[in-house]
């Protein structure tokens, strides 16, 4: 053992050193959710169950930090606004209700004040990160 310790990588630009082409966990989760929501073959109850599974898996220790839950929630809201039946089916799930409620609250916080203030932007980013990390735990 040489004891060499590389300094922790914190700068956003360095994240590319830890990414590989064609491997985007967040995109995979968003796509999976979107496919289920848009499916014309699945029954409503199965759609809700599968969406629960996707959100739940995204919130697992393995993937929580990679998934953008606000985008996920925004997708759900968009599908629900276009599909009344889906919206009703979704409301029978406590899990999905909790999820949608928590993300709506988060969005409200983020949208309350958009100023061209770098410091405030940084604060928002860091708040978002904290929310992503702590969601549902």
């Amino acid at each position, binding site marked *: *053992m040489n*004891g*060499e*310790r*590389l300094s*922790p*990588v*914190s700068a956003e630009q*360095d*994240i*590319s*050193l*830890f*990414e*590989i*082409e*064609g*491997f*985007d*966990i967040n*995109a*995979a*989760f968003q796509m999976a959710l979107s496919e289920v929501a848009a499916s014309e073959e699945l029954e409503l109850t199965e759609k809700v169950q599968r969406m629960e599974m996707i959100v739940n898996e995204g919130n*697992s*220790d*393995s*993937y*929580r*930090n*990679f998934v953008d839950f606000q985008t996920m929630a925004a997708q759900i809201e968009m599908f629900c606004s276009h599909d009344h039946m889906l919206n009703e089916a979704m409301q029978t799930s406590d899990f999905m209700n909790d999820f949608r409620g928590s993300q709506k609250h988060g969005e409200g916080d983020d949208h309350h004040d958009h100023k061209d203030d770098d410091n405030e932007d940084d604060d928002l980013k860091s708040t978002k990160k904290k929310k992503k*990390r702590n969601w549902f735990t």
Partner: protein
Amino acid sequence: MGMSEITQTRVEDAVATTNHFLESQRGASLDGDFASTQIAELTRSMAEQAEDLLTTVPHPQARDFYVPLSKHNSQKYAEAVATLAGYLVLVPSSLVEPNTAAFYPAVVSEDGIKNQSLRLHVLKQPYRQQILYGASVVLSAAGQSETKGIGDHGRKTNDSVEAEHFATLLAAGSDRSVQSAWLAGNHVNHHWRSQGNSSVTSQVSNRLFGKEIPQETITITKRQIEDGKAMLLWHEGMRDEQGKPEVAAKPGALVVMQGLGFEALRQSRPQGVDDIKRILAVSS
């Protein structure tokens, strides 16, 4: 049979049945039990370096994840090859399945040391916070399948039941082309093992377990790491009961997988068992 069904009871039954078969045919039992001890010794000798390599670089985005090897530290490639043999790691699923995005557990093969290359047996199922019993057995068997002594002719007095050969015989029982090759004196296991993206483990597993236990062997080059096309990851959940990084040393795993393979063959193609009997008779 899925990995969730790999229970200790099932394992004991499968091994007992297979041993009974081998004893009736050859008066010998399953081979390969030594491999777990050997992997345990190998990994113990590297324990300090391995843990250091596995946990030195935290993932900048994800808590409890580490990136032992990536574009960030590609100069560690040779060290990874020499140090991590027998250790469990994670790889991006896109390395073995395009357009997927999950972490797949993998074991670093001891065979990679021979060619100074990073050879991995990947279990193509998403990692979920810890390595469960079934996955641990499968990965251990894969790691143990390429430790020293496995596949050596004459290691046993009757090498027709030597671990790698018996595994290949199981494949022969389910695949006529493997059977023909074997009867013609071509022990295809040596060919499988010598290829960068193949192995006895993956070939036998594909034939006997199929999608139930999807496995693939890959070789990652230094160039791939440098170009940001591959990387290794590790997660805090991948520690054993003693808190050490998990290794492919599950006792008897190689024997277990041969037993489960025999059971799978018996169920999916019973005449394959008769084929094996014939091969054993011819080669005695």
